[in-house]
């Protein structure tokens, strides 16, 4: 075990950790908004746009994130748009997360009984009012546990951005190992531990939310 090496590098490790968390937050919020909008548009059966979004979801969920990262990182310059690792990482992660969020939210929306929509419409509510006050609140309870699970995955997936050179936690760890190859085991243990202390509590939260959602479903 080479703790001194790790200890010396604690500054940049923590900085990398912060960068990881920051990138995760951007991806989660961005992807969350994109996914929610896409899901509602598809739920409302909007013509033309709806099916196009379906293609987007299929690609986002049917291809690896790593490939999407490469596609965007190498693809933008191909069309003359210069793009740095951070921008590519954000675009890829938001698009990827958005596709998954859209599916989870859609499933949640469809789990709300038709009668709820009938009742809301019969009372004279408009479609936006119905969605905002009746459907989405109920869908949210069902969708929340898988969404939390997805977000945990996003935090871990940010590690892939090291491959395109983005300087987050994984990247920092690799540079430490490059300088002190003998410490590789220790560095990786610490690396894993850092991800673990963020993800594990969240996964406990997701389990708790899932139990609560199941109780709510027994009418």
């Amino acid at each position, binding site marked *: 075990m080479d703790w001194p090496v790790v200890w010396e590098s604690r500054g940049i490790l923590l900085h990398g950790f912060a960068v990881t968390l920051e990138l995760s937050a951007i991806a989660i919020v961005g992807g969350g908004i994109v996914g929610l909008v896409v899901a509602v548009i598809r739920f409302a059966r909007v013509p033309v746009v709806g099916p196009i979004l379906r293609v987007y979801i299929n690609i986002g969920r049917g291809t690896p994130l790593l490939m999407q990262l*490469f596609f965007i990182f190498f693809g933008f310059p191909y069309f003359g748009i210069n793009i740095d690792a951070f921008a590519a990482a954000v675009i890829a992660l938001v698009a990827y997360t958005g596709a998954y969020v859209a599916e989870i939210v859609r499933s949640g929306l469809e789990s709300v009984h038709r009668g709820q929509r009938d009742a809301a419409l019969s009372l004279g509510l408009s479609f936006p009012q119905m969605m905002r006050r009746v459907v989405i609140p109920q869908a949210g309870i069902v969708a929340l546990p898988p969404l939390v699970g997805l977000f945990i995955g996003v935090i871990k997936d940010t590690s892939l951005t090291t491959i395109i050179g983005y300087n987050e936690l994984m990247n920092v760890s690799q540079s430490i190992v490059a300088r002190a190859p003998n410490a590789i085991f220790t560095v990786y243990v610490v690396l894993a531990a850092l991800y673990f202390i963020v993800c594990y509590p969240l996964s406990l939260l997701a389990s708790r939310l899932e139990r609560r959602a199941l109780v709510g479903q027994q009418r």
Partner: protein
Amino acid sequence: MILDWNSVWSNLGMLVDGLGVTVQISILSFLGALPLSLVAALSRRSRWIPIRLVAATYVEIFRNTPALVQMFFIFFALPSFGIRLDAIVAGVVALALNIGAYMSEAMRAGIQSVPNGQIEAAASLGLNGRQTFTRVVFPQALRNVYPAIVNLLVATILASSLLSTIAVPELTGTATVINSRTLRTFEVFAVVTVMYVVLTNTASSLLDLLGRFFLPKERYA
């Protein structure tokens, strides 16, 4: 700037090879994960605490750390302990362990979702523990867990792309190689995108069909 598809067509053979490697990796990892996950799931329900603890530790560590870290650890860090694995072996092992952890949670949920009444009924009929599990609980658990298993196969296929980072010539890695050779980024990645989408959709549709055939939904009288 015109799109030139020829550079892709001339490298199609290489891409197909890459696809083949992807499929191999996915199948091997998936088949490795299956028994592992069942053992882990049953262990987490065991009466003996040490067994429960070991299984729980495995599952929680592999679910809450990135797969890339796990793979790099097995490929780059284990050699310090004398365990030197080929890239593809290290990759498959890492994937199997990773997917296995998620799969074991799905299996555990599937088993738990079989109502207690079933076990009570089996006991009243005189079945012992093993018979109850194999004839009553497991078939129902399997039916419950099947969709999650199909999703995990898709996840395995997508995760196989990670092996490109340790120089295994699967589909994503091949795409980057061809890209650097021909510089026809959009064309190459567009084709690879289609290949992945077709692969994942085909795999999941096939398994869905299989499931409908072998595990039909119960018909109520």
